[in-house]
């Protein structure tokens, strides 16, 4: 389990890193787009400004020079048509450079002064600055002989009344009255441009978000798949190990048991029946282990009991066995067939080799940890030497070790020790609280 946890932890770390990268990338991209948008807006505005300045010079220049106010409307209309946008030019009258009276249409009755030739129009404003910022920046520079040398500043006017004013251009007037033109350039194309830019940005952002979402979900899916793969591979490993073990059930055992059975059938049918039942119990149990690889200790004990029962019918007084299981350990879940091979081994090494046989003791205790002990104690007969220890078929033991480590990591251990007249194998599973809540 701990191994799996740390693996997941790694995955989370990677996912975190990737998300961070995506967000960072997004921020960079967004600011790039924003910058582009700004640049493009500024460009547009500049472009518009240049256009306007040209327009004003070409369209209004002659008029301003000749004060041909009558032709103004026409020209402006013409201009607006050519530019395909609304240009509204109003003639405004202002007094003392302080207040402005707006004449909403070009009045027919205005007669421009013929001696205002000194008035020159400069459209300095149009050079660099966005129109929107006109209020904060330059006004128009006007050389007015009647007034001071001071140019008219935007602050000079009541701009509340000039809400939509884009450019104020004083064009002169009689005596106290001065006239200017108020050219109102419709911002629609700009707005459109802006909207378009924003839309583009929004689309870009949405695409990005979608990409991020897709990326995240793909990652999540991958993670989930990975996790389930880890789980699957682990559980399938466990299954494979279990299968291997099932296949390893000693064929000698079966044939010996059948032989015992055949010897009892005629004259001891009761024994034969008992043996048949034990044998079928045993194999049914072994085959039922495939479900999920786990069962409660009670089930393993019943398997072991069947086994020892069968073996003791064969070996008769050569095999004595005792089993003790703590009551609270009986319902404890363990991987299937984790004790049985140890009992098989004990019979093989501790009983079969000895002419007088011996005793098998299975002891399972549950306190702070689960302790399973299988020991054999041979009846040493001084008259007969024992067979050599069978060179270890380690497969069974290795199998148990592998499965223990798959399930419990380093919380479980299997160890062996020799005793005075036999051997003992022990499985120790610690941290059992964690295991109890383990669903598989």
């Amino acid at each position, binding site marked *: 389990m701990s191994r799996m946890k740390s693996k997941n932890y790694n995955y989370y770390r990677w996912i975190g890193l990737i998300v961070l990268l995506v967000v960072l990338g997004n921020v960079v991209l967004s600011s790039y787009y924003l910058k582009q948008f700004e640049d493009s807006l500024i460009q547009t505005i500049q472009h518009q400004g240049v256009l306007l300045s040209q327009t004003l010079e070409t369209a209004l220049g002659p008029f301003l020079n000749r004060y041909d106010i009558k032709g103004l409307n026409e020209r402006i209309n013409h201009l607006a048509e050519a530019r395909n946008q609304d240009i509204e030019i109003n003639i405004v009258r202002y007094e003392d450079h302080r207040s402005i009276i707006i004449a909403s249409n070009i009045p027919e009755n205005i007669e421009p002064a013929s001696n205002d030739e000194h008035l020159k129009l400069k459209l300095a404003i149009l050079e660099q600055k966005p129109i929107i910022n006109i209020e904060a920046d330059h006004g128009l520079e006007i050389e007015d002989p009647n007034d001071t040398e001071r140019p008219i500043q935007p602050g000079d006017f009541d701009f509340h009344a000039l809400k939509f004013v884009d450019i104020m251009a004083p064009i002169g007037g009689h005596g106290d009255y001065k006239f200017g033109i108020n050219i109102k350039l419709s911002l629609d194309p700009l707005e459109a441009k802006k909207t378009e830019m924003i839309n583009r940005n929004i689309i870009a952002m949405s695409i990005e978000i979608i990409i991020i979402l897709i990326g995240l979900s793909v990652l999540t899916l991958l993670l989930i798949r990975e996790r389930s793969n880890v789980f699957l591979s682990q559980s399938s490993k466990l299954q494979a190990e279990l299968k291997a073990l099932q296949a390893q059930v000693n064929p000698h055992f079966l044939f010996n048991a059948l*032989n015992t059975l055949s010897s009892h059938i005629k004259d001891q049918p009761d024994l034969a029946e008992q043996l048949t039942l034990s044998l079928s119990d045993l194999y049914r149990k072994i085959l039922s282990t495939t479900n999920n690889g786990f069962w409660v200790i009670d089930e393993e004990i019943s398997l072991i009991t069947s086994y020892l029962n069968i073996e003791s019918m064969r070996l008769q007084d050569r095999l004595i066995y005792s089993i003790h299981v703590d009551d609270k350990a009986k319902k404890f879940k363990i991987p299937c067939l984790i004790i049985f091979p140890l009992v098989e081994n004990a019979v093989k090494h501790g009983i079969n080799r000895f002419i007088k046989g011996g005793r098998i003791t299975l002891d399972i205790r549950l306190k702070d940890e689960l302790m399973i002990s299988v020991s054999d104690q041979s009846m040493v007969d001084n*008259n007969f030497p024992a067979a050599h220890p069978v060179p270890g078929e380690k497969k069974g033991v290795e199998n148990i070790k592998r499965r223990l480590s798959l399930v419990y990591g380093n919380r479980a251990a299997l160890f062996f020790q020799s005793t005075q007249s036999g051997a003992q194998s022990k499985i120790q599973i610690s941290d059992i609280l964690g295991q109890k809540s383990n669903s598989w």
Partner: protein
Amino acid sequence: MKIFRTILVDDEPPARKRLRALLTPFNEIELIREADNPFTCIDMVLTLKPDLLFLDIQMPGLNGFEMIRQIPSKYLPMIIFVTAYDQYALKAFESLSVDYLLKPIRSGDLEKAISKLNLLEHRFQYPESELPKGQMSQIEPGFLNRFVLKYGRKWEVVEEDEVIYFFAEEKYCYLRANGKDSVINFTLQELEEKLDPASFVRGHRSFILSRRQVRRLKSIGSGRLEIEMSDGTIVKSSRSYLQIIKNALA
């Protein structure tokens, strides 16, 4: 009809019971004894000299193959192996046993084995097949590398690498190991055939030495050698074995 005096050996009482029951109908089989372990069985074979042995392969102490290696050729009866699982079948086939039976034994198989037995016995009656039954001592191709010794009622098994040497004295043959001499049932001649030549060498007319136990060689003139063994015993070889020993120990 030839009556086969038969011994059966199996450590499992139910298995003996089963075989005993199956053998009852066969009149040519006279079951003289049963053994529940290979050591007792060796004793029975040597003393009762049966014609036939039903031999379980998996037994405590010695397996069936190891057991028959302990029996000198002239005492070897005909053998029918009995095994629960045919992992040994091939080995049993390789041997010159009469047959092998799988547990649980079918009476049909037993019948076949016994008729085969009759056939073989019949063949042995021809004078030209001077083949003693003992020829079946090649029943198992492995070397004799464990030695079963009996002291009164007590049995011991001595491993090949514990043996210092074998020697013949008067009409008995002895094995020296673990500081004592024990009678064994083989002649030096038989031993020479059965022992692994990589481990043992005939050093004298009446000695077979374990190569790994030779500590020192000393020439004592006129082509004779004094051989000091690891337990301090000194064996004097005769001229005729000089070259053999020198080659063997080189």
